[in-house]
């Protein structure tokens, strides 16, 4: 597990031509890790019939102000480690 709960991470940009579980609306945005979930096969691999990488999945919280330029809510999204970079 590379990242610590409470730390900030940035979601990688990019628009892969294969299945992925990174919602478009968080790509390139920075959020805070609120929990480390399990270590699970990366869906990008499983969807293509590849032997999957197994990685930690994190629950990451983003502010509406950051995502949409307004709003007072937060959105928490579960993202696999290879979807992330240090900010």
């Amino acid at each position, binding site marked *: 597990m590379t990242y610590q709960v409470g730390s900030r991470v940035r979601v990688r940009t990019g628009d892969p031509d294969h299945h992925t579980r990174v919602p478009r609306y968080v790509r390139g945005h920075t959020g805070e890790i609120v929990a480390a979930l399990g270590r699970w096969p990366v869906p990008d691999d499983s969807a293509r019939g590849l032997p999957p990488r197994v990685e930690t999945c994190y629950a990451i919280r983003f502010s509406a102000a950051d995502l949409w330029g307004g709003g007072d809510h937060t*959105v*928490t999204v579960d993202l696999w480690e290879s979807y992330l970079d240090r900010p």
Partner: protein
Amino acid sequence: MTGHEDLPAAARARRLEERLIAAGLTSDDEIDDFLTRLYANASPVNGARMAARAWTDPAYRALLLTDGNAAASQFGFTVAPPADGGYQLRVVANTEQVHNVIVCTLCSCYPVSLLGPSPGWYKSFAYRSRTVREPRAVLAEFGVTLPDTTRISVWDSTSEARYLVLPARPAGTGALGEDQLTALVTRNGLIGTALV
């Protein structure tokens, strides 16, 4: 020649079933049995019972919020871990400060074993697209108005985790037994689109 795409969906579905049955990959009995079990076992009463227990038993509440799968298994509900084809249950508690709402923007993932099959609105493009962007407006369409001081926390179910809301226990219910409390917890309350 008419392609099969022109058939009404029901006929297309039956044609596909017949093809798969002929290939030995399933049977009518298997499909029927699956649906019988689904309707018998998967219901929002399951989630409601867990919420009512959490309201009356602090130790259960603590377990529910830290290990949802273990909490579900105490009632005998089927929540296998992701490695066994199930999901990781994560329960998020509503408070005066925070109201939680669950969505799956990518496809409509949903904790079926604890809520039953998902309602049409949960699967709609409108719910999937708008809840992460304007949750207050979406909640208003469900007749839910929250104080400005309450922060809305939206959870997008993008992984093997499935989310359930633990509603806040309504005021004035101190004398009610667990069965009566269970009856207060609605499916929409467990998703976050209703207050209970």
